[in-house]
């Protein structure tokens, strides 16, 4: 797999993530909680982590939040989302790389969702300089369990499918 192929594939992944984020914001949630999201675009970051590794995963995550800021135009949500993207990507990488014997992709994705929420709440604490916002974290963690479970489940299918139909992606070590 050549460098150009990889670049195109990564930019495709970023655009899929963007489309998912935009679609996701149109889906109403059954519970009214600010900050609780489905996290569909986390799927893209997880798949990138599995297929291309840590460097490209964090690249996709950061690009996704940056371009999403340009689409939605809200800078404050960009600060929340990029910190969440970085922390969740780092923790998901650690969980996938070193603990993949213990966790399946579902567990990895739950770790990522929880880390994303934790980073978001921490940034809110720093921005509003009020530690009491941490009292909101337990609710967000419970919600992140559900979203993380389904994101992990769908990522499992995606990775299986990619392994079957895009074998070229998984033979990268020899050519790059």
């Amino acid at each position, binding site marked *: 797999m050549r460098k150009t192929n990889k670049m195109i594939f990564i930019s495709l992944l970023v655009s899929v993530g963007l489309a998912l984020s935009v679609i996701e914001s149109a889906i109403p949630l059954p519970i009214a909680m*600010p*900050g609780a999201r489905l996290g569909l675009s986390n799927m893209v970051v997880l798949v990138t982590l599995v297929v291309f590794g840590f460097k490209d995963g964090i690249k996709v995550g950061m690009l996704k939040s940056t371009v999403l800021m340009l689409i939605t135009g809200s800078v*404050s*949500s960009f600060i*929340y989302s990029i910190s969440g993207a970085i922390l969740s990507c780092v923790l998901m990488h650690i969980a996938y790389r070193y*603990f993949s*014997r*213990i*966790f*399946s992709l*579902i*567990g990895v994705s*739950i*770790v990522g969702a*929880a880390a994303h929420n934790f980073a978001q709440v921490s940034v*809110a604490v720093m921005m*509003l300089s*009020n530690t*009491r*916002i941490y*009292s909101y*974290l*337990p*609710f967000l*963690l*419970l919600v*992140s*369990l559900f979203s993380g*479970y389904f994101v992990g489940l769908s990522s499992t299918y995606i990775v299986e499918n990619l392994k079957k139909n895009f074998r070229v992606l998984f033979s990268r070590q020899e050519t790059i």
Partner: protein
Amino acid sequence: MTKGDKILVLFIVLLSFLSFAYINRYAFSEQEKFISVQVNGEEIKKILFDQQLVGHTIPVETEFGYNLIEIGDGQVRVIEADCPDKIDVKQGYISRIGETIVCLPNKLVVEIKGESGEDDIDIMNY
């Protein structure tokens, strides 16, 4: 779902419930707010809420007039006043940080304040 996943899920559920219980018990106790009684702009009394003070009344007798304040469970009201329109009596209980009862003829302000002043969040926006 492997075994590790299930343990992780259990761990997060336990963690969130435990921290929720902890927060409910300690972080938001009623001790953090107090009643501030001000006459003519000066704070003359500062009362912390306490279970033993429920039903207790405090007379405020100044050169401007007379009011009787009653303390409830985390709330406070004015029950007697010698001002003509008795707006302060009609207002009833106040309980949240930042709420006030004002009696203009007697220059009396009863306010509920928090320990750390302006830390109460008005609104959160994402």
